[in-house]
């Protein structure tokens, strides 16, 4: 589609932002009436209320061997995670490949059956609903897939693809399916006249827009996007990121965005969960996480992102290189899963799994020896030999700085005594800003 046309449609979308916002709920009301008893969800979550709640969620994929196909082990893709998604926010989920983030996405949309734990959507337990039970929920939870090539049926026209949700749900939108599909196409910035074209006639970015139109068809409440932009070129990536932004503002959507690109995640998310080997290592508000990450893994992950600024080339002092690869999720390390690659690991890390604790308002961390905060296991100071090796890859500056911040926070905490967590949090924030300053001075 030509650029002028696209401009026109996006312009139009903006112009009728109000129309869109009002049109979509109106349409969903109408459909609920028509489809009668299937609609079970009537109360809408107000912004900020918990929309989705996940408790102790696990997914183990069995490994079977031999003639009798006996189970010999399991890939612990997701191994006990808890989080909430609030209405109207964007939760970003990051992690390396194999950390279970995609499995998590498929579990909360119930495309996979969890091994244990519960998933609650708008206060209703949907963990073990069957296909029929899930059907009314499918209208409220939609998914955008990573690969815009394999997620669209090549034999179907765009019209058929985007109208499929209406058919499956038995919904007759106001003004007819075709008109509604064309409206959706223009909402995502495609030319509505391309209704009869096939997926191969579109570029990658346009296909991703088709996938988004399909996900929006039933005006869902929650959209789970699994790597929505990673298959796209940089310039197209930015277009799709902006589109997701606009749609959220216009339609009040809630997103769970799963991605491996930390800069994209920071751009789109309000809160971010960092996953490693099936566990959440840190779950925090965006600004807290990026300004003062507490988990060593988060810190390493962020320092590894190449910065498009040649002046910072080879700035090894800032980079924390992790040794080796992620361990196998079939037999994850004991205690803290990150201890095999962590430069701060001590004995306690090998034996006790640190719980995900809210150390500072808005920042939950699972670590015995967090960065930028008071040590959670100060009695344990002897580094593991693996940690010593790992520490060799971390520059002395970074180590000294992290030790200084932690000590200062600890001192602050002991001064304030039993005053409680809040002042400690303030202290650490102040400390952090001081550290920031000294860092910028160094530069």
């Amino acid at each position: 589609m030509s650029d002028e046309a696209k401009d026109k449609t996006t312009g139009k979308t903006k112009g009728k932002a109000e129309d869109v916002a009002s049109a979509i709920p109106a349409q969903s009301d109408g459909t609920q009436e028509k489809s009668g008893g299937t609609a079970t969800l009537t109360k809408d979550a107000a912004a900020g209320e918990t929309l989705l709640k996940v408790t102790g969620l696990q997914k183990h994929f069995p490994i079977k061997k031999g003639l009798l196909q006996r189970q010999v082990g399991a890939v612990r893709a997701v191994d006990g995670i808890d989080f909430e998604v609030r209405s109207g926010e964007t939760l970003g989920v990051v992690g390396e490949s194999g950390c279970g983030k995609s499995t998590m996405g498929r579990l909360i949309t119930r495309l996979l059956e969890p091994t244990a734990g519960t998933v609650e959507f708008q206060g209703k337990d949907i963990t073990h609903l069957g296909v029929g039970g899930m059907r009314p929920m499918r209208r409220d939870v939609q998914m955008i897939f990573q690969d815009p090539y394999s997620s669209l049926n090549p034999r179907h026209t765009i019209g058929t693809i985007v109208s499929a949700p209406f058919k499956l749900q038995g919904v007759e939108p106001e003004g007819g399916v075709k008109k509604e599909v064309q409206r959706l196409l223009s909402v995502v910035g495609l030319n509505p006249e391309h209704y009869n074209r096939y997926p191969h006639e579109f570029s990658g970015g346009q296909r991703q827009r088709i996938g988004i139109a399909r996900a929006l068809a039933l005006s869902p409440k929650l959209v789970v996007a699994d790597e929505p932009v990673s298959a796209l070129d940089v310039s197209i990536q930015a277009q799709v990121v902006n589109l997701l932004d606009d749609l959220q503002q216009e339609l009040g959507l809630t997103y769970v965005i799963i991605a491996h690109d930390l800069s994209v995640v920071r751009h789109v998310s309000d809160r971010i969960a960092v996953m490693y080997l099936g566990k959440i290592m840190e779950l925090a508000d965006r600004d807290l996480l990026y300004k003062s990450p507490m988990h060593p893994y988060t810190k390493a992950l962020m320092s590894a992102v190449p910065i498009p600024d040649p002046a910072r080339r080879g700035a090894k002092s800032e980079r924390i290189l992790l040794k080796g690869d992620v361990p196998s999720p079939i037999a994850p390390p004991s205690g803290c899963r990150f201890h095999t690659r962590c430069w701060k690991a001590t004995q306690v890390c090998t034996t006790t799994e640190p719980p995900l604790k809210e150390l500072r308002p808005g920042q939950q961390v699972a670590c015995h020896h967090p960065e930028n905060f008071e040590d959670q296991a100060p009695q344990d100071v002897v580094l593991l030999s693996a940690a010593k090796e790992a520490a060799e890859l971390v520059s002395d500056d970074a180590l000294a700085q992290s030790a200084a911040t932690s000590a200062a926070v600890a001192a602050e905490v002991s001064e304030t005594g039993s005053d409680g967590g809040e002042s400690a949090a303030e202290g650490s924030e102040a400390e952090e800003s001081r550290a920031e300053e000294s860092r910028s001075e160094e530069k």
Partner: protein
Amino acid sequence: MSELSKSGAAVGEPTGSASGSNAFLEVRDLKVHFPTDDGLVKSVDGLSFQLERGKTLGIVGESGSGKSVTSLGIMGLHTAGQYGRRKAQISGEIWLDGTELLSADADQVRKLRGRQMAMIFQDPLSALHPYYTIGQQIVEAYRIHHDVDKKTAKRRAVEMLDRVGIPQPDKRVDSYPHEFSGGMRQRAMIAMSLVNNPELLIADEPTTALDVTVQAQILDLIRDLQKEFGSAVIIITHDLGVVAELADDLLVMYGGRCVERGPAEKVFYEPRHPYTWGLLGSMPRLDRDQQERLTPVKGSPPSLINLPSGCAFNPRCPYADVPKDDVTRTVRPELTEIGSKHWAACHMSQEQRERIWTEEIAPKL
């Protein structure tokens, strides 16, 4: 790393015509066209650059801009391969250390390939042979160019695996590619390409398939090895972060042509082509405060069969109407030198571009 002393890597317009070249690698007016049923695909359409030993050139661009076709062209992998039943049409000159590669016969190029120039491919799983062990593949690459027995070659393979940071190299040398993780496969690929101490290393999206933590390891490795071996490196990527890490010089490609090239600092801090602005504006950046909104390039990349007339970027360029008389839509802009070793192909005057960059683009990044 002395990133500020750029003098060695000349990126100026090549001078002279038929004579040999003084630069280690010099590409002159390279064109790679593929005839297809739909028409002639002009993947690379007149590309020139130079590269010195010990320097790194970064080539960036979107998919379909001709980055990989350029690298395969330098390696001489187009003439040998056939596309359907029709061959690629290649013209221009590629001088590698005084030898012109395009007119050289296949045997001569084969002797250079792997020995003087080597390549790291994007996807190590498809570039490694699944039936042979990692060791056998490295040994093969070594023995083609060195007359040694298998034992010596295998020792060399172990040594290389150790050098690229594979743990227990004497054991892993007998592993098959599927037994390696993604990062280790890429390390093995690098070991294989460096086994003959090539003077030119072409890395085509070497880290695209890898996680950030592994990417950081591999970029560090490439940088260290380059220092150690003093090779010239061409790194091809779509990620501006990766080139900023490694490259001394930068070449931005669009629609098979170079739209801007120059020292990395110049291209990052004073870019003078709207497409480069678009690329920079499309990236969310971790080192800056949260941007409110990204400023993407509108539209999508052009068809290489029917490039837009005039400047190939004009349908996507927000400033296409700045130059008078519709010149952007009728005349193709030439690459002109706008600063020391800094070249860009744009119809806007230098003053106009400088003003737009400082007033409109840079504040939004």
